[in-house]
């Protein structure tokens, strides 16, 4: 095995072009488990932790460009205001030790249907910036996930950053687990209000072969939310929204939960998080007025 230690992004991309089989290594919280248990014996490891270009974030024109190598801990402490739902999702990842190392780039690289950041990336319309020696391209979160633990990167590409709009209205993320800390999601859900475009993003995790948007539920909200005459939401709207979210799921029965339970739990998560987000929105509208 080789251990490649590029000092900057250009070197990293050159290394990946030369060794397309090299496994990128960020926080290592997924990769090292596989190595420790002999589940993977790559020809080379490509350590990205020295690549400064991946380790920071910037905000420009209302968009956060979040470097692939920024840890969850930093995201939570530095970007809670700009990216509330992503910060909420990050708070539910593993333990402090895992959050100190784990990254959104690594969550995307692993592309597990249960990854906690995915529903947020989908609901907020995030884009993934990937690069190779051939150039840079942007992939919509919607097109990023292509199968169970499969993403749409070419073998010579690396994830460089994630672009997310700065939140202009309340967002929520919620996860069901078998206990409070250190659990992989039984199912998860994110909702993001976008008053400017009169729409709301909604997406589910751990309830289909890939994380996915709940498109019908989004359309329903776009039509039903009383953006212009803000008023408390009718229960029937929240309930219908929950049903539509649940119907977007294609869950399986596994050790963590049955498919039926996942559908039920998603409907509940969707109803509640929409209620919270809309309540916050009403509150902020009133204080502005």
């Amino acid at each position: 095995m080789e251990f490649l230690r590029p000092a900057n992004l250009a070197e990293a991309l050159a290394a990946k072009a030369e060794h397309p089989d090299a496994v990128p290594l960020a926080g290592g919280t997924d990769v090292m488990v596989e190595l420790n248990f002999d589940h993977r014996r790559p020809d080379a490891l490509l350590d990205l932790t020295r690549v400064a270009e991946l380790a920071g974030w910037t905000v420009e024109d209302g968009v956060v460009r979040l470097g692939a190598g920024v840890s969850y801990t930093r995201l939570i402490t530095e970007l809670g205001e700009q990216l509330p739902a992503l910060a909420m999702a990050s708070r539910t990842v593993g333990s402090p030790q895992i959050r100190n190392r784990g990254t959104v780039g690594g969550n995307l690289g692993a592309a597990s249907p249960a990854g906690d950041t995915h529903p947020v990336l989908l609901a907020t319309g995030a884009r993934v910036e990937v690069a190779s020696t051939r150039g840079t391209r942007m992939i919509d979160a919607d097109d990023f996930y292509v199968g169970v633990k499969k993403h749409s990167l070419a073998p010579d590409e690396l994830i460089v950053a994630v672009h997310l709009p700065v939140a202009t209205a309340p967002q929520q993320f919620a996860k069901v687990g078998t206990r409070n800390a250190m659990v992989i999601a039984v199912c998860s859900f994110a909702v993001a209000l976008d008053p400017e475009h009169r729409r709301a993003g909604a997406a589910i995790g751990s309830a289909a072969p890939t994380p996915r948007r709940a498109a019908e539920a989004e359309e329903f909200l776009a039509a039903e939310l009383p953006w212009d005459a803000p008023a408390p939401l009718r229960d029937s709207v929240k309930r219908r929204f929950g049903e539509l979210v649940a119907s977007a799921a294609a869950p399986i029965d596994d050790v963590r939960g049955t498919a039926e339970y996942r559908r039920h739990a998603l409907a509940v998560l969707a109803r509640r998080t929409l209620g919270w987000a809309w309540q916050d929105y009403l509150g902020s509208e009133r204080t502005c007025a």
Partner: protein
Amino acid sequence: MRVNVTVNGEARQADDVWEGESLLYLLRERLGLPGSKNACEQGECGSCTVYLDGTPVCACLVAAGQAEGREVRTVEGLADGDRLDPVQQSFVDAGAVQCGFCTPGLVVAAHDLLNRVPNPSDEEIREALAGNLCRCTGYEKILDAVRAAAK
């Protein structure tokens, strides 16, 4: 490969390190520092917790090569000679150590918490220690130890 790393303030070097090896293996088997314990090798138990450049991490999930040129502080590095760190002493005093397997990781995690939050609430203690498993103490004594060390 060769790895150079500063451990508990001392420059150390290890040769013939396998590229897929963890920092935990490097510390225990190559550098003779068995304080950090190997229990799960999957980030679940926290008994291998060490500081890497000042941040608590699971040493089992860091590739040895990622520690090149960096600074590691293990539970062995918390004591000042024969004088235990207050967190270590308080684990002893509170009876928070039974078999002791989880203790090094818990001590490092608690040490970090008290550095950041000198007077943590019970909630904060529980959250900070959520990645550390103990199969012996039932956690009450551990919570007592952290509360006492905070004083």
